[in-house]
């Protein structure tokens, strides 16, 4: 009718992906240039003897160790780590997912409530303000005493550490809900109570997802910290255990493993949130 520029825009985007995709994969290769150079320099430095191979393993040693850790047979092998990689990854990932989910559910719910209702803010905000400045790592001894050397201690610490960024962002999101949207919803027949779900939640979603992303990154930090001290399994435990046995190669592999897992989980969260945020300008 009045103008159709808006109709044309998405169509143009629809015809573009193929060209864009090839351009993007070319860019990806360029992105790898510096990392590849760094690994090569590292290899040369160790092999040439510039760096002592006992303190820093060469990349090829790291790859070997990784392979043994992942695919080696665990029976009667000389390497105690042989074939245990998946078990460790599974143990750590499970704790991250569990702790993160608990924090996500609780943090989003509490954050929305605080941002939405004054009474909830009065009751809950002080609790959060008092507990938040305590670093999660300071909770480690408490968690060990309270839960024992158990996976639950790790899950507790992760949930505790993820909670603040999630709750803060959910609160900010709910607080920033445009008043006029609430008015519009009430006018269209939404009850005041329901407006929290109908308006505040969707309106706060971009902010909530930011909080979740920060929380997820923290979850990987905390799973390593907690497993070093409070649990006898998982990547953090392997890392600490390898330190005691002077297995620098295992330490490096564990470090890279956590890095890869953190990267993948962040990408997964991004993929999940993409359709949710299709409407955001």
């Amino acid at each position, binding site marked *: *009718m009045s103008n159709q520029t808006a109709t044309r825009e998405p169509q143009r985007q629809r015809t573009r992906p193929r060209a864009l995709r090839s351009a993007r994969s070319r860019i990806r290769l360029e992105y790898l240039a510096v990392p590849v150079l760094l690994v090569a320099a590292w290899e040369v430095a160790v092999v040439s003897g510039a760096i002592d191979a006992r303190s820093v393993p060469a990349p090829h040693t790291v790859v070997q160790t990784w392979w043994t850790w992942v695919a080696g047979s665990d029976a009667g092998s000389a390497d105690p780590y042989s074939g245990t990689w998946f078990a460790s990854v599974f143990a750590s990932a499970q704790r991250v997912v569990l702790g993160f989910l608990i924090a996500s559910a609780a943090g989003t719910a509490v954050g929305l409530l605080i941002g939405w209702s004054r009474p909830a803010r009065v009751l809950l905000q002080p609790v959060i303000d008092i507990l938040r400045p305590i670093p999660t790592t300071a909770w480690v001894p408490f968690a060990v005493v309270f839960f024992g050397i158990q996976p639950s201690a790790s899950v507790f610490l992760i949930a505790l550490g993820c909670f603040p960024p999630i709750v803060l962002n959910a609160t900010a999101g709910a607080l920033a809900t445009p008043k006029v949207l609430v008015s519009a919803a*009430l*006018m269209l*027949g939404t009850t005041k109570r329901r407006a929290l779900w109908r308006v505040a939640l969707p309106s706060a979603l971009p902010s909530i997802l930011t909080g979740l992303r920060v929380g997820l990154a923290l979850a990987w930090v905390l799973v390593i910290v907690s497993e070093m001290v409070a649990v006898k399994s998982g990547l953090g435990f392997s890392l600490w255990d390898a330190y005691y046995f002077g297995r620098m190669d295992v330490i490096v592999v564990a470090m890279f493993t956590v890095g890869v897992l953190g990267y993948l989980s962040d990408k997964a969260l991004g993929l999940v949130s993409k359709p949710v945020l299709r409407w955001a300008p």
Partner: protein
Amino acid sequence: MTAPPVAPMISCRDVHKRFATKASTTFVALGGVTLDIAAGEFITVLGPSGCGKSTLLNMIAGFDSPTSGDLLVDGAAVTGPSPDKGVVFQEFALFPWLSVRRNIAYGLRERKVGKAEQRRIVDGMLELVGLQQVADHYPHQLSGGMKQRVSLARVLAIEPKILLLDEPFGALDEQRRMQLQDDLLRIWEQQRKTAVFVTHSIEEAVVLGDRVVVMAAQPGRIRTVIDIDLPRPRDRTSDEFNALRRTVTDALWS
């Protein structure tokens, strides 16, 4: 005073609105407004900023309540916002996370109208405001004029008793504004809803209204009400139109 033959659709009786300000003084937004609006009437409310015209509209809509005085819509006191009082906001107030289609269906969904019926009504509304091509777009992909059409369709879909429009075209350029005024009139002629349209544009007030309510500030009050007897569609450049524009302008500045 003689009783009107038919009960008014909207009735304001000595409506006052005072706000407490910081220095423990009160600001009188409205100092006694009395106004009856008949069913099917199109009223435009004109006044400078601070005259309380938006406050009046917000109170009729139920977003705010008078400090004193009575406010009746279809004979019942206003207690809060509800679907029988449709509001079109200046800021469009579309839900950005819903497509055009789902924005229009929002009120129907809240009323638990069946899926097929929802679809039928929404399709009708899309046609009415001429937005079939962008039905599945999100608000951020639309121009201001299109957004306001969606907002209008969303309100008309729930068939409110009255239509309250708060400077709905204020954010649009002149050309788009005139186009939307014509569209609004076309739709209003079909549906004959009681409409209250707040504006600060003299021309807009004269083009649209059966009556123009001219307000003054400090305290907010009705200065005068001017009948616009021109047949629609109104020629914005005719002598009669300009004469009325002058009358309204004089009333505004007196």
